[in-house]
């Protein structure tokens, strides 16, 4: 199972933004390996959440752990069958541990886009 978490510049702390997070941490539970990738959607002028969701889907993630998530990205995850979990606390490592122990809850509320508000 592949789990992705948006992380900030420290590369260890969960980023509060999903679409505009600078990096994603990809944890493979089968191999126990972790990979860090840059988020090419972070600088998008529009539809950053959608583009970031595309990245998550293309990486073959089964689950995403995030503080928050927009409705459009949530629609992509629903269509792709990616589960979304609510992050608990700032540490990416501790969130992975909590998820493996079944302690994270499923994220069910999504915010409207920020587009058109600039």
């Amino acid at each position, binding site marked *: 199972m592949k789990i992705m978490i948006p992380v900030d510049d420290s590369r260890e702390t969960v980023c509060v933004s999903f679409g505009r997070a600078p990096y994603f941490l990809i944890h493979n539970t089968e191999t126990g390996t972790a990979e860090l990738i840059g988020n090419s959607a972070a600088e998008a002028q529009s*539809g950053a959440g959608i583009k970031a969701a*595309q990245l998550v*889907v293309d990486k073959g993630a089964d689950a995403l752990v995030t503080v928050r998530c927009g409705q459009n990205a949530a629609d*992509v995850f629903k269509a792709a069958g990616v589960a979304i979990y609510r992050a608990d606390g700032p540490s990416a490592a501790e969130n992975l541990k909590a998820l493996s122990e079944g302690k994270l809850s499923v994220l069910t509320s999504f915010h409207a*886009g920020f587009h058109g508000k600039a």
Partner: protein
Amino acid sequence: MRVAVLSGKGGTGKTFVSVNLAATAKNAVYIDCDVEEPNGHLFLKPTYTNESPVYTLIPEFDAAKCTGCRKCVEFCRYNALVFVREKPMVFSEVCHSCGGCALLCPKDAVSEKPHSVGAVEEGTAGSVRVVTGIMNTGEVLAVPVIKAALRAGAGAEELTVIDCPPGSGCPVMESVMNADYCILVTEPTAFGFHNFQMVHKLVTLLGKPCGVVVNKTEEAYAPLEEFCAAHRTPVLLRIPYREELARLGATGQIAAEQDEETAALFRKLLTAVQKEGAR
């Protein structure tokens, strides 16, 4: 002559000035480009003669023809497209209807289908022609509706008053793009002055001549006066802060038709605008 009325800050009196100016000019076209909340019609009370829907084009994908090359998804600079479970998916409110995906598709699998975003209502109130752009609730792109409203009101020989949306973004730029002159409505407050400077910068950048109407005036607001003097921007009119104007507005009346003092002010504004615009 096409006169755009804008302010940056909402609630400064764009619609108040637009409606009164159109009513004073008599032979005029009033176009409400504040399509999120058009309210000029509440004062002009036109008899509507025509309503036309506004559509944008949104891509549709033929699953039988699509080979999953993802060229459309990669092309979309608005990120309105994603590729999920071997097929493209569109977010219609993010799509800007550029048509690039349909042009680019090597398998001709993309067609464009109309998507309703709003309507344009046309009518008359006395000798004033009234055009109102109305965006559907839930839509986020105002520009297509503004374009349609401006198109419906175009071609007039007489004075055209364009009541702009608040702010200084794309919808405002679209509204003032074809104007010959801009009236910047402001109020003597820090907030009003701050946003006034933004729209002043915008119209200057667009090369539009402009003049200022200071609404709700009690005493001169020094930063505004200094700014106008430094930029050689004429103050065309000062409208006093009067309870009577609020009362007339609250009951949906056009002040220039009810109150002689206001009528005289707007005659003065009309003359000033015609003179400035003729330069």
